[in-house]
């Protein structure tokens, strides 16, 4: 349902141009968990920012259920955005709203009736197992709890895909495991397609069925996670695997 074709993005700065994306292609089926891994500066965030339309790519297409979202404007664009939930490394919660109000936020934006919002808040907070913190403000929550609220918020409009940029990079290893477990559960129960950007091979290893290795704005390797782990083809992949094994 998500297809990305030949995505390119160049940033021009004072010290010359940086080709952040150099022609990215991939295609996902419903229910995939796709891990995109790469070193710092490889273009991971830029790719995700293009897919979430926070950044405009120079060329290429992003098809969601056959519609090129780059051609959308106004209300059609906002509607398409509600089909994608985004989870950020820094949580990006509204600091002046409680956990429950944060979850309600995307529904309010979509002008959902109040009664329905109340119902959704309960369901979602239960799903991410944080019902007891409904009336807490983000400043009163731990990193893991904040990310749970952020995931609940991203799921509020029942999106078809969840896009996560380094969702666990600010968390300790136990909390990382719990948050990844939660994402896997969501994928199983709601059939939500998930894209995870990360620089930690462990994240890909634990939950992704498909993966891609990005370097210099290009996928140097992509396919089934199992196969790539068994037989890494590129130098970068071996390096990423090696680093993780050395650290373990």
């Amino acid at each position, binding site marked *: 349902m998500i297809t990305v074709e030949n995505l390119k993005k160049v940033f021009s700065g004072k010290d010359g141009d940086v080709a952040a994306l150099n022609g990215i292609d991939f295609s996902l089926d419903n229910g995939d968990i796709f891990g995109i891994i790469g070193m710092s500066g490889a273009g991971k965030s830029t790719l995700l920012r293009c897919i979430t339309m926070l950044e405009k790519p120079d060329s290429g297409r992003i098809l969601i259920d056959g519609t090129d979202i780059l051609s959308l404007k106004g209300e059609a664009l906002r509607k398409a955005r509600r089909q994608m939930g985004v989870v*950020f490394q820094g949580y990006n919660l509204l600091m*002046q*709203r409680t956990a429950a109000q944060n979850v309600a936020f995307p529904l309010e*934006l979509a002008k959902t009736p109040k009664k329905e919002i109340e119902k959704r808040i309960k369901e979602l907070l239960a799903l991410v197992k944080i019902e007891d913190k409904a009336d807490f403000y983000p400043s009163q929550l731990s990193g893991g709890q904040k990310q749970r609220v952020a995931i609940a918020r991203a799921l509020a409009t029942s999106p078809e895909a969840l896009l996560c940029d380094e969702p666990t990079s600010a968390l300790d290893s136990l909390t990382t495991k719990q948050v990844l477990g939660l994402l896997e559960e969501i994928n199983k129960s709601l059939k939500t397609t998930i894209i995870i950007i990360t620089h930690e091979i462990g994240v890909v290893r634990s939950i992704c069925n498909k993966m891609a290795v990005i370097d210099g704005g290009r996928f140097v390797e992509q396919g089934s996670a199992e196969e790539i782990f068994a037989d890494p083809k590129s130098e970068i992949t071996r390096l990423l695997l090696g680093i993780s094994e050395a650290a373990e």
Partner: protein
Amino acid sequence: MTEFLAKYGPLLAQGTLDTLYMTVVSTFFSYLFGVPAGVALSVTKKGGIAQSPRFNAVFGWAVNVARSIPFIILMIFVIPFTRLIAGTSIGATAANVPLIIAATPFVARVVEQSIEEVDRGVIEAARCMGATDFQIITKVLLVESAPGLLRGLSISAITILGYTAITGAVGAGGLGNLAFRFGYQRYQDDVMYTTVILLIVLVCLIQWLSNWAAAKADKKIIK
């Protein structure tokens, strides 16, 4: 002391009321105009949600020009306009006109600064959830910056209070007028000192109220 109060009490009470009246009305209207102006200054900046560098440059320049005119000159300069709006150019009500004109660009900058403090990541998150520009302004920018806006409100109100003392010198009433009439024109230091003390009390009161409101509103600080 009782003699002093009997003689000047009513005058001082009226002066305090006039000063408060000018401060409250001018602050209210300068926020009514200054908040949209401050939002416009912030969102049209490069990288803002409705970026428009040309509009921002022109508007920012106009705000700077308005801010650089000394208040006493602006007050005289706008007298014809004051007459048009208030029917007269003397008295506390008339004084509100130049006060609002002088304070609005000031308020715009104070508001702009508070809005700049809203985390860009939160704005982007709202964007990803399909928020319109208007929703980002009303539900993210103004709400997330509310504690900062409240703190800025005291800076603006105290600045306006200072301006009212100047309008007092040209006959707009208020504590400034009393201090000027008794202290400067009649050398009655006791009245002048009393007005100064009353002004200090008012400033402290405004500061204390807004600190309290901002602390109460801010959920970012763990209590």
